[in-house]
């Protein structure tokens, strides 16, 4: 009996210890710092309690970062899901097994690239003078379009790279999910006079609802961690057009002011918002 009770502790204990050291300690430390007025330039600091948090709500740049983060989440998650489902269905309908294999391998390559590499490759491709993407526009019109220097252009270009990495990868996963579905309901639907697109809209995608939701959440979490992509491609610019919350926190903490306490406060806000929103979404979608 005592052995049965202690067994879970034996197995879970080490993992929990590691988790506590790696996750809880920095989190609590960040929260502690966020209650102070610590900067990188001064050796000591005082507790100013919630002044940092109050300051955020009158900080336009913080509110902008919050809004950009939201836009970024919605844009990248929805674009990834739409692109991946579209590509997967197109492959499922049109490609022979051999082509599916070839395309699957090609589609997995982008996500294998470290994100910093992908960001550099595409940043150069978007370059107004030397970029491969801008070359047709240069050749035809003679202009040198600088996509990354317009607010909307920069947002879409960075999102494009994100979708290029994850949308193609998810397309492969969804293709495999489609292939794993039992074929008979699809055949029954064909006999029931459903058109090709109707079969997917009414039969296959609803049958894949649960795995698709999982993919969506995975992508939503992944999109939150896109700091490296934004950092390399735009540094949050032009202006603050692509400055997500983590980007702004980094700027505050390490680039501009060295305002570590303020940056930690933002990190804490981000953590709380994320946990709350994901819990709500998870419960909603799983109903």
């Amino acid at each position, binding site marked *: 009996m005592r052995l049965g009770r202690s067994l879970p502790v034996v197995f879970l204990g080490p993992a929990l210890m590691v988790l506590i050291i790696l996750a809880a300690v920095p989190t609590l430390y960040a929260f502690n710092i966020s209650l102070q007025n610590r900067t990188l330039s001064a050796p000591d600091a005082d507790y100013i309690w919630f002044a940092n948090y109050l300051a955020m709500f009158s900080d336009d740049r913080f509110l902008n970062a919050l809004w950009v983060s939201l836009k970024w989440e919605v844009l990248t998650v929805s674009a990834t899901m739409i692109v991946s489902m579209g590509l997967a269905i197109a492959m499922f309908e049109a490609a022979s097994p051999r082509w599916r294999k070839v395309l699957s391998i090609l589609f997995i390559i982008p996500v294998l690239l470290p994100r910093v590499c992908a960001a550099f490759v595409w940043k150069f491709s978007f370059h107004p003078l030397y970029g491969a993407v801008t070359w047709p526009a240069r050749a035809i019109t003679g202009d040198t379009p600088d996509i990354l220097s317009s607010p909307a252009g920069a947002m879409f270009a960075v999102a494009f790279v994100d979708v290029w990495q994850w949308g193609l990868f998810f397309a492969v996963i969804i293709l495999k999910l489609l292939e794993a579905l039992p074929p008979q309901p699809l055949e029954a639907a*064909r006999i029931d006079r*459903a058109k090709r697109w109707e079969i997917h809209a009414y039969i296959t995608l609803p049958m894949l*609802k649960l795995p698709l939701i999982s993919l969506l959440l995975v992508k939503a979490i992944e999109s939150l961690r896109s700091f490296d992509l934004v950092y390399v491609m735009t540094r949050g610019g032009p202006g603050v057009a692509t400055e997500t919350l983590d980007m702004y926190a980094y700027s505050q903490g390490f680039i501009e002011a060295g305002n570590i306490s303020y940056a930690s406060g933002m990190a804490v806000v981000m953590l709380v918002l994320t946990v709350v929103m994901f819990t709500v979404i998870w419960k909603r979608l799983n109903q």
Partner: protein
Amino acid sequence: MATVECSGLRKCYGSHEVIRDFNLSIADHEFVVFLGPSGCGKSTLLRMIAGLEDITGGDLLIGGTRVNDNDPGERGIAMVFQNYALYPHMSVRQNITFALERAGDSKERIAKRLAPVVESLGLDVYLDRKPTELSGGQQQRVAIARAMIKTPEVFLFDEPLSNLDAKLRGHLRVEIARLHKTLKSTSIYVTHDQLEAMTLADRIVLMYQGRIEQMGTPEEIYSRPATLFAAGFIGTPNMNFITFTVQEGRLRDGTLDLPAPEGVTGHVTLGIRPGAVEVLDAPAHDAIPAVVERDEFHGETRLVALTCGVQGLMAAIPAARKLHEGQNLFIRFPSQSLHYFNTDTGRRL
């Protein structure tokens, strides 16, 4: 209501031909059963008729129109699958009405058509359940309802009862027979179960290795099997086969001595159903001695393994008659129940 006409149908997977030159015409209202062992091409053929498999060659006509290149939805067919193939995320009601909704029928019309179908299959109380909340038999009823509501010209059944337990199979078989009587639509039913075939069919198409082995009413196939395969496949318990070489117009093996069919030489296989073997206690005219090897009790009947000279054969006798192992007795083959086949070609003589 429609006829189905297959002329010279062929199906190849690459260079492998699974169905060659298949010819069959099915009359309006007819209930035809494709019967055969697994891998004989019967399901492939049904799927070709449904439009789920491409037709490599030949013509398929439904209701007099060539439908080789029509989509499954445009052939006026409905199909019931072995594993039900219900849409798992939809309620029973949505499953049944899916086709009507795709065809753009109005809500009132759908409701009007739904009611009698649901009632005839006893599905009223399950309409709002999901398929996973139903038993296998109920799921197959839903699948049948889904097929019925389209009022198809041709009903296709692909081993619809194979996934059900024996008792339920019997129930649904009766139900399918009843539905066919009321709906009168042309039906094609694929099965490997001879009992289903015998009880449901107006006509059985017995298939083997992609060809029609024999075609006819259940009685015809049972009483006059055209080939050795047909004789061996139809009927439980299996027919006894004894192979002889014809000598001086007689079939002899030392103990047995029977007249050979006229003008036949070479090897002959004699077939006799266990039920047709007469088992006698005392010697009689034409009777030959035999020894009881094994005695199996089957309820109504008793299946007895006998040794008769060098041959072993089975005889079915009423269960009330008790025999013991090693008992000596006599058997007689009534000449009208003997089936003669050419051993080499397998054809009936």
